[in-house]
């Protein structure tokens, strides 16, 4: 479903600030795979997400979605097949527009936009039904401006919008990190529910190791622009945080950097 082949990216090349962001990244996701990505700050997780979404293009290497080489596709063109939820709850929705208008934008993702009215009776019904699945009572606030919603509600709406058209790939970039623990738990639960419903192929970056273990069928660990550990479905079932810490030490020969990151549970 998603294939990264030999992706390389260097930032600020040929300057003193040169940084190898991604170094020979190879990754292959089958349809229905849910891969969680962990790693310390600067490991290249977000850069990898941006390579897939098209916000950045690789220096060399190719990105394939659904067997199609999309390396040269612009971000907006790729996003036909890719749903995204960002860390910032404000990033995934248009605050000055209503809930139903935001959903109409999500609805048009894989269709060409024309002069049809965005929210008609039939669509409104569809939006209402989908919102009910969130159990946040948003279905009764269809004409409320999204800017009035709380961070958790906005993130839940972002998640619904990202998955609305059943995209080939769902990218979640630390999408619970900016929320308080109870909201984060709610969003985690909704993520599971929405991904399971349509069996979406998902890649999720998280700083929360427990979340990385609880969600998904595969796990990868990144460090200094490389994928240093890949855990397959069989092994992931019984994986613990201690296992991950040990693995890191074994591979890198050093203790896992103790930033908030890997220690937060």
């Amino acid at each position: 479903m998603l294939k990264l082949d030999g992706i390389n990216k260097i930032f600020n090349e040929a300057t003193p600030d040169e940084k190898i962001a991604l170094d020979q990244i190879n990754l292959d996701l089958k349809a229905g795979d849910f891969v969680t990505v962990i790693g310390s700050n600067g490991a290249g997780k977000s850069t990898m997400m941006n390579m897939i979404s098209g916000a950045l293009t690789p220096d060399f290497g190719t990105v394939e979605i659904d067997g199609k080489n999309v390396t040269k596709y612009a971000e907006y063109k790729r996003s036909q097949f890719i749903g995204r939820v960002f860390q910032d709850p404000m990033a995934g929705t248009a605050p000055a527009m209503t809930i139903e208008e935001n959903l109409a934008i999500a609805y048009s993702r894989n269709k060409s936009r024309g002069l049809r009215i965005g929210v008609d009776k039939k669509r409104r019904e569809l939006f209402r039904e989908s919102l009910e699945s969130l159990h946040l009572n948003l279905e009764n606030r269809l004409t409320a401006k999204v800017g009035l919603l709380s961070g958790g509600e906005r993130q839940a709406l972002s998640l619904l919008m990202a998955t609305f058209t059943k995209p080939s790939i769902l990218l979640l970039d630390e999408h619970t990190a900016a929320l308080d623990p109870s909201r984060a738990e709610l969003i985690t639960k909704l993520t599971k529910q929405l991904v399971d419903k349509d069996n979406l192929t998902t890649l999720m970056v998280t700083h929360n190791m427990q979340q990385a273990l609880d969600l998904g069928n595969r796990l990868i660990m990144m460090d200094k622009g490389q994928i240093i550990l890949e855990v397959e479905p069989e092994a992931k079932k019984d994986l613990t945080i201690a296992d991950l810490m040990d693995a890191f030490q074994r591979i890198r020969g050093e203790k896992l950097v103790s930033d908030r990151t890997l220690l937060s549970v």
Partner: protein
Amino acid sequence: MFTAIFGSVEQGIIYAIMALGVYLTFRVLDFPDLTVDGSFVTGAATAATLIVLGYHPALATAAAIVAGFLAGCMTGILHTKAKINPLLSGILMMIALYSINLRIMGTTTETAIGRPNVPLSNVDSLFTIFFGWWGNLGIDTAFNNVLASIGIDNMPKTWGTLFIMIIVTFSIKIIFDRFLKTEVGLAIRATGDNDKMIRSFSANTDTLIILGLGISNALVALSGALIAQYTKFADVSMGIGMIVIGLASVIIGEAILGTKTIVRTTLAVIVGAIIYRIVIAIALRVDFLDTGDMKLITALIVVVALILPKFLEKHKERTRKAKRRAEHKVASGQEAKHLA
């Protein structure tokens, strides 16, 4: 006085079309587009030139709309493709249009390449054609009789301009409101609201910005074409400060009617354009003010319209707080008595 205000309402409702264009870029797309000063004249020049050259006024006006659309698209291309800052893209286009406008008007004469103005005094315009039909209806006499009966004797020459412009401007408003609710319209609004988000939903923000600027300047040019036919001339300097007038209309309207829904905001913009004209008309009747002071007055109106709503809000909050403090004092005073 009545005639002066009547005239400003007529003008205001024509300028309202321009203000709707400014609203689209300034508020909806969040793009401060200065092309307006140039494209307003482009509309006026194109229409006037084609009319003088013998084309039907309707065709001339349609051509003006297309010219404005193209001018707006160019600004959009400068910004999105050449990555030039929005303000600078607009200024560049505005200055380029100045020369283009001279050239357009220059095609009416063989003695020069450029021409700074084109009079329309002895030719048909959309208004004269309409008056030909309107004059036979006898509505003017009826209305003026009503006015006479309430003691106003300075009669406007015709009610036709007001009548037709209300129809034209409100038709545009209704189409405009509806457009902003279509799939493309929603995408344009989202581009101004959160461009990162709309790109992640497979919309090409470059195309949407170019399209939005095109539509905006098409409206501005239409307004210019109608003003040229209303005042019976086109002049290369008639667009100076037009963007500020557009902003003044948007800001005044929003301050009075609010921005709760799009339908309401576009109505506010139209009302704002009319009020602006009335304020100017009244200001110009003050003895020591001269027509040359108009731009200064405009600037002052915008400043006041920007400051006043904030000031009123603060004042309202202060009185609210003061009232609550007083109530609190009374309440705690009673409690103290109680204890004693």
